[in-house]
């Protein structure tokens, strides 16, 4: 299986704090890679380095075989890397539907002319259809024309996932996609991921480990900026080191 996204000795320093420390991480084709770890262990920072929000202090990131360490975020997205944010980040002042136009339209313009991009209405049918199908995926179609700020927290999360999916990535990075969702919705999201996961490789950070063990093929555990353990979930979760840092000393059941 080919590595789509790999890092070599990736390090990020924040004024003396080593948030990510010499990390070699990879996401393989067709696989779901889970990333867990205690709070502040550097998971989000690692994703930020992968997606180009931060430039690393040291080490490299390569994506699809090219070194993208210095490539700006938008180029990485164009190459096929999409992500969501731990603290939901959608466009509150636009409508739900316009949020999706944004993520859907880029492909259209790559295929079509600049004129369409600058002068044709964004409400034309081909775009509208794409957006609707993205919305149907997450069950938000009835809110298409609402202003996003009116959505509840959970709905915004769903919208964010829909946006990420409509970017048609080859690698998708989800940062705690289940946070703020009720069990029912978690079920929906997980089954959605099942449905679409064959289309891309997935990296997922999550604290609700029980909800994703079924889903992930490989699990990495971070602590204090390092990957302390990786492998198939069943094995990793029984690792004493992992149990200690994540569940605490007294917890020994496995």
């Amino acid at each position, binding site marked *: 299986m080919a590595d789509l996204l790999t890092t070599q000795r990736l390090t990020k320093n*924040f*004024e003396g*704090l080593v948030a990510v420390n010499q990390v070699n991480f990879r996401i393989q084709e067709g696989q779901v890679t889970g990333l867990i*770890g*205690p*709070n*502040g*262990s550097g*998971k*989000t*920072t690692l994703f930020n380095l992968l997606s180009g929000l931060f430039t690393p202090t040291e080490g490299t990131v390569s994506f699809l075989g090219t070194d993208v360490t210095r490539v700006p975020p938008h180029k990485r997205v164009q190459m096929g890397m999409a992500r969501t944010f*731990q*603290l939901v980040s959608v466009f509150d002042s636009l409508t739900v539907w316009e949020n999706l136009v944004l993520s859907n339209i880029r492909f259209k313009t790559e295929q079509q002319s600049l004129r369409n991009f600058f002068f044709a209405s964004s409400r034309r049918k081909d775009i509208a259809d794409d957006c609707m199908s993205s919305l149907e995926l997450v069950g938000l179609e009835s809110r298409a024309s609402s202003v996003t700020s*009116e*959505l*509840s*927290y*959970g*709905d915004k999360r*769903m919208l964010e996932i829909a946006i990420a999916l409509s970017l048609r990535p080859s690698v998708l990075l989800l940062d*705690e996609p289940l*946070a*703020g*969702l*009720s*069990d*029912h*919705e978690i079920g929906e999201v997980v089954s959605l991921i099942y449905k679409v996961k064959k289309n891309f490789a997935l990296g997922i950070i999550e*604290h*609700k*480990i029980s909800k994703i063990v079924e889903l992930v093929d490989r699990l990495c555990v971070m602590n204090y900026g390092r990957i302390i353990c990786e492998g198939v979930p069943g094995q990793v979760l029984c690792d004493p080191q992992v149990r200690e*840092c*994540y*569940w*605490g000393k007294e917890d020994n059941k496995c």
Partner: protein
Amino acid sequence: MLDVKEIDAAYGRAKVLHDVSLNVNRGEMVFIVGRNGAGKTTLLKTISGLMKPAKGYVSFEGRDTRGLTAVKLARLGMRYVAQDKKVFGNLTVRSNIELAAYASGVAMPSAIERVTSIYPDISKFMDRKAGGLSGGQREILLIGRAMVGSPRLLLIDEPTEGLAAIVIEDIMRILTRMKEGSEVSAIIVEQNLSVVNRLADRIYIMKEGKMIREIADKAQMTDTSEMENYL
């Protein structure tokens, strides 16, 4: 100590709470569960005084809170921890805590002690901007900040969201301790049923802006299958 009486609340024209009632007794820990968009957050905001109810009223320790601002209510001992993990990002962690200490007239060391008891690692971040904290660290800071001093009623919106199991344990420990001492009451919005089960004295279930069920019976509470229907 808290009585919510048949309140309605609305954002502009959109009414999102319909006739919601709820009460909390001293030293009680009440949980609210419900699906996304059920109106849980809106309910907490209304109780905390950040939103005004369109109908009905809230009384806190026997006082009608209509006409009291959020600031007044906070002074009376109500502390609201919002869902969006907003810390004072441009201040250091220490200053974040300092403001809470200042507001409740508590000395800094004991305030810091409060927060580190939840998450000892925070002491490493004291002089960093709070804006740089990780999602979980923010939540911890917020909860810790709310617990500084002696709050009478905590309103916490999804406290375990984004926290590692080990921290959840710590928080639960602290909440249990508080509960035992009957120092503080709490209304907690939570989706994590295992937490609910362990701490809840009573559970309210919300759906589409209405309070549809109250579970006070311990046995029913541990049987999550029923609740799951609503989640």
